């Protein structure tokens, strides 16, 4: 009867487009780093240390964004840094997505003691400051890319578990789940074939937003000296190195900071755009 016209829906298209463009740019930059970077990001040139960017008075096109304390080319470091930051962020977000989704879906679908154990553990973990836990573990086992992914991935599972748990409980009550049971389907089949597909839109959104979180956390850990060890080019390390020279060479920290802000903003915009786009309430219903 009354078909509802879903109001102006340009907002999320712009968000998705702009967000995706930024994210795509960052990913391309990471992949094509050896082609894009004008210099070796680790080559020191003590004669050219602390050069300002090209538009400053003493700037030169040789180092478009200037150099750091050891004369390393900042643009190259920024480009290479995106590799580790994005890889760590995406991998950690995916790891926690897998962990959290599986546990959350199990808790929501099976209920009973399994639900009690998983969800109480998630609550306890949520109450514990994430970054503090990450600091403790990295301080103990040392910083390497793999350790960072593991630590950040494991410490982020509860967000997914909570969301997936609640959604699974709602989906479990829908009649088509009972229909599948009546056809003789196993729990694993139902979870994979009937429950999970209903959760994908939300999972996509949460996961996207979590990538931004993870990049920020990697940066924070590196900044605190707990991430990848210093010569490695990551945005967090660049931020940390720039901190000491903030008054004499502000550009070192500025560009890393800007890169982080831009990428995180782009990812968040993409995530929010996706959420609006996938929100079933915004879609036409019959």
């Amino acid at each position, binding site marked *: 009867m009354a078909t509802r016209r879903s109001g102006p829906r340009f907002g999320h298209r712009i968000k998705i487009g702009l967000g995706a463009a930024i994210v795509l740019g960052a990913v391309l930059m990471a992949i094509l780093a050896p082609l894009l970077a004008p210099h070796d990001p680790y080559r020191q040139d003590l004669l050219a240390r602390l050069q300002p960017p090209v538009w400053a008075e003493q700037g030169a096109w040789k180092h478009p964004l200037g150099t750091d304390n050891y004369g390393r080319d900042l643009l190259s470091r920024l480009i290479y840094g995106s590799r580790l930051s994005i890889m760590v962020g995406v991998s950690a977000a995916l790891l926690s997505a897998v962990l959290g989704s599986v546990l959350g879906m199990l808790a929501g679908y099976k209920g009973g003691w399994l639900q009690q154990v998983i969800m109480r553990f998630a609550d306890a973990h949520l109450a514990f400051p994430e970054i503090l836990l990450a600091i403790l573990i990295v301080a103990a086992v040392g910083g390497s890319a793999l350790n960072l992914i593991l630590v950040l991935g494991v410490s982020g599972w509860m967000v997914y578990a909570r969301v997936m748990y609640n959604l699974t409980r709602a989906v479990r009550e*829908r*009649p*088509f789940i*009972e*229909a*599948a*049971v*009546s*056809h*003789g*389907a*196993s729990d694993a*089949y139902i979870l994979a074939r*009937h429950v999970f*597909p*209903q959760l994908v839109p939300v999972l996509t959104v949460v996961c996207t937003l979590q990538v931004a979180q993870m990049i920020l956390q990697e940066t924070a850990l590196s900044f605190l000296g707990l991430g990848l060890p210093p010569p490695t080019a990551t945005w967090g390390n660049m931020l940390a190195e720039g901190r000491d020279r903030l008054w004499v060479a502000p550009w070192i920290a500025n560009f890393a900071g800007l890169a982080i802000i831009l990428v995180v903003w782009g990812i968040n915009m993409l995530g929010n755009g996706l959420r609006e786009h996938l929100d079933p309430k915004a879609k036409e219903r*019959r």
Partner: protein
Amino acid sequence: MAETLVDIAGLEKHFAVAGGGWFSRRKLAVRAVDGVDLAIRRGETLGLVGESGCGKSTLGRLILRLVRPSAGAIRFGGVDIATLEGAALRAVRRRAQMIFQDPYGSLNPRMRVADLVTEPLRIAGRPPAAGYRAHAESLLQSVGLDAQHAERYAHEFSGGQRQRIGIARALALEPELVVADEPVSALDVSIRAQVINLMQDLQARHRLTYLFISHDLGVVHHIADRVAVMYLGRIVELAPKRALYATPRHPYTQSLLAAIPAATPALRGRRVALGGDPPSPLAPPPGCRFHTRCPHAIERCRREDPPLQAAGEGHSVACLRADEIGPIAIPLIQPGGRAGR
């Protein structure tokens, strides 16, 4: 007499609900099904009627073992399935299928119709000889839909068409028993008749046995061979259709029939409305469960729980005073037959 396909004895299902106050650890139980004996014969349509909350849906789901009984036996083709688990249970479930009330919710919105109707075969690991796609098309055609519909999603169909998809899916595994839980209640009147006719055609073609659960006594009258009446978790009357409608023996059945809105204006107002609401299944009254609303209740009914007893050929009733009250015919149609035809 036809072979018995399902034989239920002393079946109970109690659902635990949180009860008492915040600090109480007392558990209450909804006695959804509370001592049911029932046999379903191969090839028949057994109508199961009752008002909401009487336990008729739960009874249907117990037979399919979608819920686990608290007590009692369910023999399906001679094997007790009441306590089966795991793979053995899943194998039994495939011999009995369900048609659901909600044609909107019971079809996964993210699956194409071709996948929906053949899903039971995939789950069972029984690929059809002709291939999934061709089989899906023939299933759709058997329920009166077009083969081209296979590519679409459920939301592109009307309620009646969706119910046909649900029926095609239920028939994919060629089940022996089909439990239909209010299959036409959500449909418009003109569509209802189409779906009922389809179910009858399919029954004849595939030699199906139906347990037809409904609150609509008119629909049950049309489709059922025998009818069981449920009240608060118990079967209070069971009879061949003709006997149940012409000579109802239980006061509850009599009230139900009397409460049906008139078939024509000429019969209006000739009915006695049953007073009150059904009691809560959390605390069914002692004695006969119906005594709180029964116009014939006496002191004995408050104390004694009447068993389901024979009261004529194939007719049984759970009422202490059934013989005194006797069958009461309810005027359901205008003398001289139906108008407009």
